[in-house]
């Protein structure tokens, strides 16, 4: 099941979704056996911003049918804190590290990319473009031109693979993916969470401290699959597919829709070792053979 992704050799195609597994915290809860049985073939760290962020006020979670809404608000130690405290710890994980970054202007993103450009602990960078560019007011990852301008700006700063993480809250994610590809991105990943909302059962005000949040989990699985398929049909660069993956069968769907890697997010909340199970199930599916003999394999 080993797979090559942007020149990086991975033991299997299952990684984590950014922000859905904190390897440092998990080691505090589970101890070092976590490292022996590390569930992901590469580790994607939670979004890092230039400045430290405390994140959104609680409540941050709301359970929905087959999923949840989160308004975590990207808490993180900021670039300096990440470099000083998190990076050394994450570098000790037994798998390649992908650092996910977000900026509120192109220059902020450039600063983040530059900071990791030469770090040998870092295998690749993922750009979280689900937020508005405060200069243009446009969601960076919802508009092909914004995305192109961003990738064009940061591409020259590093030779490391750049993965653009697309937002699903867009009219045409495939057009955004194509713009990222044309501007030099090495891969795209999707989907991030879908905008959702819940009201407080009593006060009738928004329940979440952040008012709205992002929906993930089984509920978004078929929406994610449609977007992964549309994107994979449009671009030649590899795709990291995610959204509601809970089983090896779900992962196989994402791969057959055209993805090279599959990320597991919310399911790790339900089962901390979900990714181990999912890659085991995927392997046992023996996907080549499952095809009827009269059918030529999809590319």
């Amino acid at each position, binding site marked *: 099941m080993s797979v090559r992704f942007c020149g990086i050799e991975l033991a299997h195609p299952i990684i984590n979704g950014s922000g859905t597994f904190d390897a440092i915290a998990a080691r505090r809860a589970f101890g070092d056996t976590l490292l022996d049985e590390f569930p992901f073939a590469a580790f994607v760290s939670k979004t890092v911003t230039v400045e430290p962020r405390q994140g959104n006020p*609680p409540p941050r979670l709301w359970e929905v049918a087959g999923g949840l809404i989160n308004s975590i608000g990207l808490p993180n130690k900021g670039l300096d804190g990440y470099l000083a405290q998190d990076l050394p710890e994450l570098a000790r994980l037994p798998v390649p590290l992908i650092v996910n970054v977000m900026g509120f202007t192109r220059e902020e993103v450039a600063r983040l990319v530059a900071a990791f450009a030469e770090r040998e602990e870092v295998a690749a960078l993922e750009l979280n473009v689900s937020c508005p560019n405060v200069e243009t007011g446009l969601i960076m990852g919802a508009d092909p031109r914004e995305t192109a301008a961003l990738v064009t700006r940061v591409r020259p700063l590093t030779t490391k693979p750049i993965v653009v993480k697309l937002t699903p809250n867009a009219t045409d994610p495939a057009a955004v993916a194509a713009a990222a590809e044309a501007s030099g991105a090495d891969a795209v990943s999707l989907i991030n969470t879908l905008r959702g909302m819940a009201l407080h059962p009593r006060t009738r005000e928004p329940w979440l401290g952040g008012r709205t949040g992002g929906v993930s989990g089984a509920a978004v699985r078929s929406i994610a699959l449609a977007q992964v398929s549309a994107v994979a049909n449009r671009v030649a660069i590899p795709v990291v597919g995610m959204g509601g993956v809970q089983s090896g069968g779900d992962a196989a769907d994402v791969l057959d829709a055209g993805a090279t890697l599959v990320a597991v997010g919310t399911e790790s909340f339900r089962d901390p070792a979900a990714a181990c199970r999912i890659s085991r199930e995927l392997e046992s599916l023996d996907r080549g053979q499952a095809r009827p003999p009269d059918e030529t394999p999809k590319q």
Partner: protein
Amino acid sequence: MSADRRTLAPFGRRRVPIVDRCEYGSYVVLRCLDEAGPAPRPGQFYMLAAAEAWGGGEGERPFLPRAFSVLRATPESELHFLLEAVGPGTKRLGALAEGEELWLAGPFGVGFAPPAEQRRPLLVGGGVGIAPLAIWQDELGLDATVLLGFRDAAHAEGAAVLAEARLATDDGSVGHRGLVTDLLIQELDHTDDARAAVYACGPPPMLEAVRALCAERGVPAQLALESGMACGYGACFGCVVPTRAGYVRLCLEGPVLDAELLETALIPGTGHG
């Protein structure tokens, strides 16, 4: 007595059988056999889900596992949990019968710290929040004074899971008519504040009253809090509570927090439903 407040959890979740279910008034006690798991520390918690038919309830929920303080752990690897049905998850768990199975992950979080020498432990519980006090009493022994508050007689039956508790009920049907904090004030009035250590778990308004009271008197208190949790092991950043040190993930730094760390125990999104 072990001073360690955190037992590490085996990585992943495990499927364990229910070996007994019984009711105490408004509460259900589930006993399950966790042979693969270690002994938890008092105050730690587990994430539980029914192994079958978890979901499809009210509003197509539950989806995520639910957090439960361990009520009691036996040398035979039994874990006991005390539940009150307040929504789709607790309803489904409370309906499980002997022989059915749970998905269980944990123990998670940090438990209670032993009282400093010379301090007498006062355990103060409200409603389903009495759960972690039982295992803590098991460890502390009968020196610990136990004060429990309940809504009414049906809930007060839950007091049977602890030994020798003084009770208060809102409606006066059992024990003192009024709040458990009335009993706490009485106890503290009879104790040198320098010789008391309070351990409390219960609804946010009760915890806030305990916190304010202890702060005023300079009595050290540890509060076992609740907040909405998705994962229980620090993965989702969903369970944060505001503290004097900023937001902390309750599943990782708690659920037991030193009262001093808090400006208030009224955590948004809990117990206000």
